[in-house]
């Protein structure tokens, strides 16, 4: 069943058109990866879906047309966005960051906090520390845990591996994968490292200058000659 479907999604910054009509589909329980070079429009696509920039076309999430909705209502519908560069709140403590992740929830969040501290013990050890004092890897974990505090059905994750050591990246991807497989969390992931992306994805979209130029399941993309040359180094 289709959870997210964008059709002819367009977005621009001022006069500059960046997305020229993007069609992307994420089914319930899928892990979908967006690949693409710098400046292709990956981040812009994520922003358009989460409602943080003006956009046009159609975005249907779980039967609702959300292209006209603001960021707040989109979170409430169940989409959480981990922005590129993490966007953790450096003057708030680790725990406060998690609490604000649950901003839209009215019920008790203590058990969720416990849970993410168990998943990421390093965050638990630093729960009263200011987020600004964490390492890059820890901040990325915090950004993901914070997004999950809203109990989303779709997680948008923008280049979580950026600037992280391979080992930390593996740990993070492990967590994402198990959330996806064990709990059926649907994930739309932006990733520059094609090898990594193809290992984890059910489905891949390749973006070039604001357009989808190739898409398919991980195997067929891995077999695509153009992609091998451009993204897999051979």
């Amino acid at each position: 069943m289709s959870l997210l479907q964008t059709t002819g999604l367009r977005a621009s910054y001022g006069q500059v058109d960046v997305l020229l009509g993007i069609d992307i589909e994420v089914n319930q329980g899928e892990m979908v990866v967006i690949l693409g070079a710098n400046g292709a429009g990956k981040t812009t696509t994520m922003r358009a879906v989460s409602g943080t920039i003006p956009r046009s076309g159609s975005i249907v999430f779980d039967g609702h047309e959300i292209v006209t909705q603001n960021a707040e209502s989109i979170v409430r519908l169940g989409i959480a966005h981990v922005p590129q560069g993490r966007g953790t709140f450096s003057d708030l403590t680790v725990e406060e960051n998690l609490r604000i992740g649950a901003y839209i929830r009215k019920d008790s969040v203590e058990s969720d906090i416990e849970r993410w501290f168990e998943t990421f013990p390093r965050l638990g050890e630093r729960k009263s520390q200011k987020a600004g004092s964490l390492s890059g890897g820890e901040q990325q974990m915090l950004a993901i845990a914070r997004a999950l505090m809203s109990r989303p059905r779709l997680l948008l994750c923008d280049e979580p591996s950026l600037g992280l050591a391979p080992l930390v990246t593996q740990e993070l991807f492990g967590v994402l994968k198990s959330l996806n497989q064990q709990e059926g969390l649907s994930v739309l992931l932006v990733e520059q490292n094609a090898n990594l992306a193809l290992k984890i994805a059910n489905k891949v979209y390749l973006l070039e200058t604001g357009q989808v130029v190739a898409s398919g399941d991980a195997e067929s993309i891995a077999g695509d000659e153009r992609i091998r040359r451009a993204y897999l180094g051979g």
Partner: protein
Amino acid sequence: MLKIKEGSVVHWAVRVACVLAIAIFIVYIPTHSETARIGQFASAFTLIIAAMSLNLVLGYTGQISIGHSAFFGIGGYTAAILIRDHGWSPGYTFYAAAIIAFIVGCLIAMPVLRIRGAYLALVTLAVAVLFPTLLRWKKLEWLTSGAKGIDSVKYDKLPVWPFLGELKGRDGRAVFAYWLGLLVLVIAFLICRGLIKSRVGRSLIAIRDNETAAAVMGVNVTRTKVLIFGISASLCALAGVLSTLSTGVVTPDGQYVTLLGSIIFLLIMVVGGAGTLSGPIIGGLVYVWLDNTTRGIGTDSRGVVGFIFGWTNQSPATLILGLALIVIMLFAPTGLVGLFRKLSRRIVTIEPQGQ
């Protein structure tokens, strides 16, 4: 270095000792000081409230406002007009001023807060500059009494508060202004504290840190900014009411009604420590102390001061005050509260529980 466990007996003892010391100080001032000193504290309380209100907007949410003198003025004039023209009992004017300032604050914030940074500073600067001009406007003279302002709006008869006994004369007025100021200050402090420690407070800091990330957490950034601006405006108006009630006059040239007021609130907040709850309190006390100490320095000073400033034929008071504030900011870029925290950490550390 001393180490104290959080929640231990020693920790509690230190806390209780601090609270006791503050309480004794608060009672000592109005019972044992001369009238002028009591008045200085009353005006410090007023300034602290204004700086606290600005702190919500600038310190916590990161929105620059240089227009808070106008909200102070709205409070001051609301009280004066309601008491003089409509015979209101002074106590009720606090509510009216808070409501009017809240509405005006939100109306200004709605279009203005969509713009950021320097532009916001410019628009609020214009508000601060225009406000006194508006008060002097001929067509509003029926309301504001134009350039001469409104005077003798004090309490006719001081209310009787159980623990104060009967208050009379100039001394009585000062003592009453002191306690009234303290009461409003405590209320304003509790409102700020309540806001900051709640989910709203976290969302304010989140907006300051990263507006877009706050939005994707589901924080309605514009609405939050507008509301906090309105709340801040109404707190600042309370300070204005206090000032009118304790001095009895309000004019378009009044120090805190003009642009200078906005600058003073800003200074107090920054000197004390922006984005901290106790910052405005420390800043306000230090500012009033410095202001009164330097004010005594005249052209006839001797010694070092006379040597340095002897060439002027004006009192160097404002200049010295300004220099002192610059020195404080150089040595304590995060405010006096920040400096205090850094220094005290070298002597005592509080260890969190369960470690």
